[in-house]
């Protein structure tokens, strides 16, 4: 306790107990928090980047089988989910704005809407996964994906190569969904505190930082949707 009282004494005007002693100003503290999230997002870019790289390599090698696998996915459900995520990004952006403007009620409404949209995305994703299980498109002993390669009626689909497509599909969308689940959890905690009036124009760092994370997860989906659902759709 001695250390903290010494540190407190070092601050000339120590009016805000939320200001940690190793920061000079609240603004610096806030900048450090969001910069920390940006550094974390940089590691996330590398994390998802590895999977995108694997996808590109195998798509290059097994072009036709990937096209056939892509055509078996539902553009309607995938497109709806894209729209749902974009709407949730808007509600997050509006939540941050509401906190900045001290609109406590709007903040809580936006946070709840974000969680509902996030859960809606996960629900639709669950329906898609269910369809894939029913169709035996899940890699493993029961994998069954008959047909031919798009634009080549004489070339049957290679079952091994198609399983690589579906493995990447499940891993990439699955890890994306895991990020969504974590995001919904973060917003549940933030909503809890927002209802207790913790956030306002004086302090909204958790809302902003969780928002950055949510927008990043949205961006990952913005790339997953065309790469997994839309390639070779025209054939």
């Amino acid at each position, binding site marked *: 306790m001695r250390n903290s009282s010494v540190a407190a004494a070092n601050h000339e005007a120590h009016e805000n107990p939320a200001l940690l002693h190793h920061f000079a100003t609240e603004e610096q503290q806030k900048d450090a928090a969001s910069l920390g999230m940006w550094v974390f997002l*940089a590691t996330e870019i590398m994390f998802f980047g590895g999977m995108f790289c694997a996808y590109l390599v195998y798509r290059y090698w097994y072009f036709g089988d990937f096209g056939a696998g892509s055509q078996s996915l539902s553009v309607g459900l995938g497109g709806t989910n894209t729209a749902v995520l*974009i709407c949730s990004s808007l509600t997050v952006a509006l939540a941050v704005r509401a906190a900045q403007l001290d609109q406590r009620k709007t903040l809580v409404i936006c946070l709840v809407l974000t969680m509902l949209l996030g859960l809606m995305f996960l629900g639709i994703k669950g329906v898609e996964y269910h369809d894939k299980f029913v169709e035996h498109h899940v890699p493993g002993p029961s994998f069954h994906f008959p047909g031919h390669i798009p634009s080549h009626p004489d070339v049957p689909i290679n079952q091994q190569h198609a399983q690589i497509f579906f493995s990447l599909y499940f891993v990439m969308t699955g890890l994306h969904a895991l990020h969504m689940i974590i995001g919904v959890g973060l917003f549940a905690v933030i909503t809890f505190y927002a209802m207790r009036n913790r956030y306002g124009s004086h302090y909204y760092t958790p809302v902003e930082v969780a*928002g950055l994370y949510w927008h990043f997860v949205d961006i990952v989906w913005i790339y997953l949707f065309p790469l997994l659902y839309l390639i070779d759709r025209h054939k």
Partner: protein
Amino acid sequence: MSEHISSLKLYIGIWLALLAGTLLTVIAAGIDLGPFNAVVALTIATIKATLVVLFFMHVKYAHEKMTKVVLISAIFWLAILLALSMADYATRLWT
């Protein structure tokens, strides 16, 4: 990160642009452009991602310069990962 408070109009505008981009990319996927289908899809995705980063994630108004340094570094590392890996795999069958 920023004291800047964006207007409601801007947020709604970005949201509509993102929805329009999604619709556009679905429509473009249905048209046979040959090898340019992938180019068009990824260009639209990159424009959408840029809008999200600049306006929803407030990078356009960030006064902390390190934010941009981190972001540009991350994109640069990703470019190294993808470009060098693809340069390898794309030339393996060359004799």
